[in-house]
């Protein structure tokens, strides 16, 4: 999905995206994979009773989502949310969230 859109926005867009990443800045909202920006409603830059995700690696987030989805890891709510995403979607979300600082 992201790949397709990069093509759509053409070379200029792709270059801009690259510059953003290499400058070490927060990932642009324009590049957010489906579902990712919703996570920020509960998981912000600072932890509360809910964890911040920006200190976690992409694979930590991806694994947690997988375990919530399968039920291997218990939660009050995340199991219900993880079931709404495929492994590929979770991977893309994890990459975007972990790059956000």
């Amino acid at each position, binding site marked *: 999905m992201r790949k397709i859109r990069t093509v759509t926005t053409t070379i200029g867009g792709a270059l801009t995206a690259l510059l953003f990443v290499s400058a070490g800045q927060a990932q642009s909202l324009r590049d957010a994979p489906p579902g990712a920006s*919703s996570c920020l409603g*509960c998981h912000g830059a600072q932890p509360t009773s*809910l964890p911040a995700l920006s200190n976690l690696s992409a694979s930590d987030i991806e694994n947690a989502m997988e375990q919530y989805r399968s039920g291997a890891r218990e939660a*009050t709510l995340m199991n219900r949310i993880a079931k709404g995403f495929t492994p590929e979607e979770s991977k893309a979300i994890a990459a975007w969230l972990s790059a956000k600082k």
Partner: protein
Amino acid sequence: MRDTRPSRRHVIIGAGAAAAAFAAPALAQAAPQVVVIGGGYAGATCARFLQREGVSVTLVEPSANYISCPFSNAVIAGLRDIAQQTFTYDAIAAQGVRIARQAATKIDRDAKRVTLADATTLPYDRLVLAPGIDMNFTALPGYDQAASEILPHAWKAGPQTLLLRQQLEAMDDGGTVVISAPANPFRCPPGPYERASLIAWYLKNHKPKSKLIILDAKDAFSKQGLFTAAWKEIYGDMIEWVGLSAGGKVVEVKPREKIFVTEFGEHRADVGNVIPPQRAGRIAIDSGIADQTGWCPIDPVTFEARAQAGVHVIGDAAVAGGMPKSAFAANAQAKACAQAVAVMLRGAQAPEPKLINTCYSLVTPDYGISVAGVYAPAKGLLTDIPNAGGVSPAKAPASVRAAEASYAEGWYKTITTEVFG
């Protein structure tokens, strides 16, 4: 799934826009202007995220402060100060969003121009409409603006919240509180039942001989099983819920006598709370963006109004398919909409979004329950993804309910920081 393969046309337009964006800082030349009407959970979020994408944004909002509805039921129960509900627009202005502290009075859809209360006009390339709700003061006989000073709705937070609080404080022990709940759709589906719970908490601790009756225009409501079981367990028979088929629908109110008239009889209240039928904020109705239902149908990918391309609608005013009218949903829609607008301003196609909603409710200060959902566009609507989402388990230890109550607080802190902090 929509066909997301790039057409030749998209590639060319995309190249032009991207090149223009690249040639000079930000979106130079005639920088595209976005106007956002309404600085609530939806509009304020959208304005901030658009500004961070380099878009020139004006946020139109008449109030100097935003008073948040989420957690306002705790204010009514005396558990929280209204100051904890009150936010300024300072951080949003400091970030570089222009703020017009006025009401939008007119949208000229052909000229792409918004008129403000002082008659100035704001031209736009794209408009985001996020005016929230208005009470429909013509839908329930006897209930108009004046009646709401006696029987508060408290469904917009502020003076109405404090009025209901004062009335509860002034009520004698042994009094009857009556809440009337509307038919769907309305702002915050679990809200009336959270309110009943927290008022019962106050009564149980301060006026234990009192009673609370919910007169409902529906036969089913959000998290019903969880609420009903918790009420029984915690409040015994203090709370009585009367559904539609048992005669719960209120057909008239008599504010002077505080009488609620149903199809089956009359209830006299010592404190009466009327949550009336609602519709999209007036500007959405006047501009013809809302349809005859009073709400604004939208495209689930771009959030553009079905009535008008280039005008995006988010938050409570929109018909968001399976998504409830919640602050969480308004904030999630705002970010997906900001992404769509930023991408479209560059001449590209908005990506298919996915959205999450989570609504916590408090039954007591340490007893939280939740409902969640995940949504994606299907058949022209934002639609529930099957087998995901749902409510908290029916049977759970007190530790789980306490954890959810503390997560509710965490959510509030995080979201209000993202929107106003």
